[in-house]
């Protein structure tokens, strides 16, 4: 193959520009709020945008890449020159993102990751290249010789989500809460910017209708938050498709931004069956992969969603794609009575500590905080009956970890456990209870999967199994 230096797609200029604009957008928008002289502000903004466009042009002008059938080389930077060489054999994860506006131009953006741990970003990024070249790169990473024609890879097995499942997944995801907090934050910021006169008027209205209006506002915010969360998830997992191609798993999803992640099976550190309490009631489960890859940063708690939502009875579907996941996933035995009680006690203690200041200093409204105690107790009880660990065979262990009305059942191969820790305070020693902590790599860091208040003989058996 020729090794002439190639340039990125012309659209990369726009992408770079938008990225630069993103950095300065917040101060610029804020300055519009503050200044009364809009013409001047507009001129300054235009000046900034122009300068940044120039910067984007420079970046584009000095961004090249070449590849042969062994490796990819990326040259970038004018003042700080950077040359990166990535052998295809070392590439573990390929991620492509195609925004809807790139599609008509047959362009896409590509990120390539090796197993290196030094950087938080992908080792190689090609912000915008033509789809054809992206396909060629994917072929090279897969270890196939490059065809000039793009070939559709043959899938050994595949799964596509249907509309009703997608709908169920979005409805049962508790990802609504963070968005709500975001909206509240936004509301706070906006109300700061409102003039004091307006706030004064608003206070008078509050005084008239009092609590009623407050409740309406809260409900409306809640509804908007839930709707936003719902739409977010639908568009992110739109037309989700999972396929297995030899030793790689490929997921595709997204409406506005089509995202494709292709990873080697060896990169999977653990498989998690995740259920929120709502999903549990509906007998649904979401299957996720813990990967040693940064490609999954935006996913559900940094795990790659493998099967967004399936019926509890269908878990053998996971086995089709990852063969070391058992056909029938059963729950590990529960903690001992002493262990369960310890978890409930801790939850109650924490809610007491949270409640006390309200009840002492904020009476009579502070009495409302007393509601936290039964909720905390319930949460503790939920965690207590949803914790446990069991050894499946010589090679695998399954861990059930429940917390905050959500439970995760992990299947972890022994060879992926990086270290194992037993912890025991002097108070636990008397009652023969131990915390067990399994450390697995996630992304470029550590995920600690722990079972608390496990009975000592069980914990020691797992410890010995791990060491053997």
């Amino acid at each position: 193959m020729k090794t002439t230096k190639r340039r990125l797609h012309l659209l990369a200029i726009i992408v770079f520009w938008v990225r630069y604009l993103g950095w300065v957008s917040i101060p610029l928008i804020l300055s519009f709020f503050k200044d009364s002289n809009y013409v001047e502000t507009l001129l300054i903004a235009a000046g900034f945008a122009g300068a940044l466009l120039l910067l984007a042009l420079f970046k584009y002008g000095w961004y090249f890449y070449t590849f042969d059938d062994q490796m990819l080389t990326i040259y970038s930077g004018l003042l700080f020159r950077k040359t990166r060489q990535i052998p295809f054999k070392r590439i573990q994860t390929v991620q492509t993102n195609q925004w809807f506006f790139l599609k008509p131009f047959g362009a896409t953006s590509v990120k390539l990751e090796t197993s290196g741990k030094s950087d938080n970003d992908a080792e190689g990024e090609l912000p915008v290249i033509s789809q054809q070249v992206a396909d060629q790169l994917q072929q090279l990473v897969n270890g196939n010789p490059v065809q000039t024609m793009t070939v559709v890879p043959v899938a050994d097995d595949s799964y596509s989500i249907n509309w009703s499942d997608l709908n169920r997944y979005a409805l049962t995801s508790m990802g609504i809460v963070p968005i709500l907090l975001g909206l509240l934050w936004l509301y706070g910021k906006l109300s700061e910017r409102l003039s004091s006169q307006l706030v004064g008027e608003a206070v008078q209205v509050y005084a008239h209708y009092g609590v009623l209006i407050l409740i309406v506002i809260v409900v409306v915010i809640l509804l908007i938050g839930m709707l936003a969360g719902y739409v977010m998830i639908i568009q992110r997992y739109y037309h989700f498709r999972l396929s297995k191609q030899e030793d790689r798993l490929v997921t595709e999803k997204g409406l506005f931004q089509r995202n494709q992640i292709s990873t080697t099976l060896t990169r999977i550190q653990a498989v998690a069956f995740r259920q929120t309490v709502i999903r549990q009631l509906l007998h649904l489960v979401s299957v996720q992969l813990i990967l040693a890859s940064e490609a999954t940063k935006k996913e559900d708690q940094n795990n790659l969603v493998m099967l967004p939502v399936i019926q509890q009875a269908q878990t053998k579907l996971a086995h089709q794609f990852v063969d070391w996941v058992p056909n029938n996933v059963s729950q590990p035995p529960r903690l001992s009575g002493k262990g369960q009680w310890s978890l409930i006690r801790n939850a109650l203690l924490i809610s007491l500590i949270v409640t006390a200041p309200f009840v002492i200093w904020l009476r009579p409204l502070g009495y409302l905080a007393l509601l936290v105690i039964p909720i905390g107790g319930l949460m503790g009880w939920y965690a207590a009956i949803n914790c446990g660990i069991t050894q499946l065979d010589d090679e695998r262990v399954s861990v059930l970890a429940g917390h905050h009305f959500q439970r995760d059942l992990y299947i972890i191969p022994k060879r992926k456990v990086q270290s194992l820790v037993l912890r025991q305070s002097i108070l636990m020693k008397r009652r023969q209870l131990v915390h067990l902590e399994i450390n697995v790599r996630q992304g470029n860091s550590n995920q600690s999967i722990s079972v608390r208040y496990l009975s000592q003989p069980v914990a020691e058996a797992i410890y010995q199994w791990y060491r053997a």
Partner: protein
Amino acid sequence: MLRVIKGEALPTKMKTVWRISAIGSLLIGLIIAAGCQFAHIHFGWWVWPAWVCLLVTIIDVAMEFAIVPYRYRFWRYRISDDDVEIESGFFFHRQTAIPINRIQNVTLKAGPILQLVKLQTVQIETAATTHEIEALLPETAEELKQRIMVLAMEAGNEND
């Protein structure tokens, strides 16, 4: 009831190291307290920050000195052909197992105090976590490093 402790203790010189480090804390605390007192005299600060500093320093240093024998007694490590085990703490007991073929790299380091008594801290890094053996004799540290290197060569890179 105490657990029967297996494995090797840290070098006995470690007790000295902890005591020196406690004296170091004392000096730093005293300097901060003196600074507060200086600010009280010259810039009109309140008196109490200096006293609080002094009190906290004294309690902290007393504790550090008092727990030295316990810390030493319950700190154990064991390096076998297959794994490294680290055990520490009496009130909060903690036991860690790290199989040697999961170890990605080993770092030996020594601050000024450790250099003085010719010891080294061994930092063991896996793909996910970092663990520390607080101090080893340089020979032991070197030997451990060598052994891990050899095993790592054999095991190949399967942890990515």
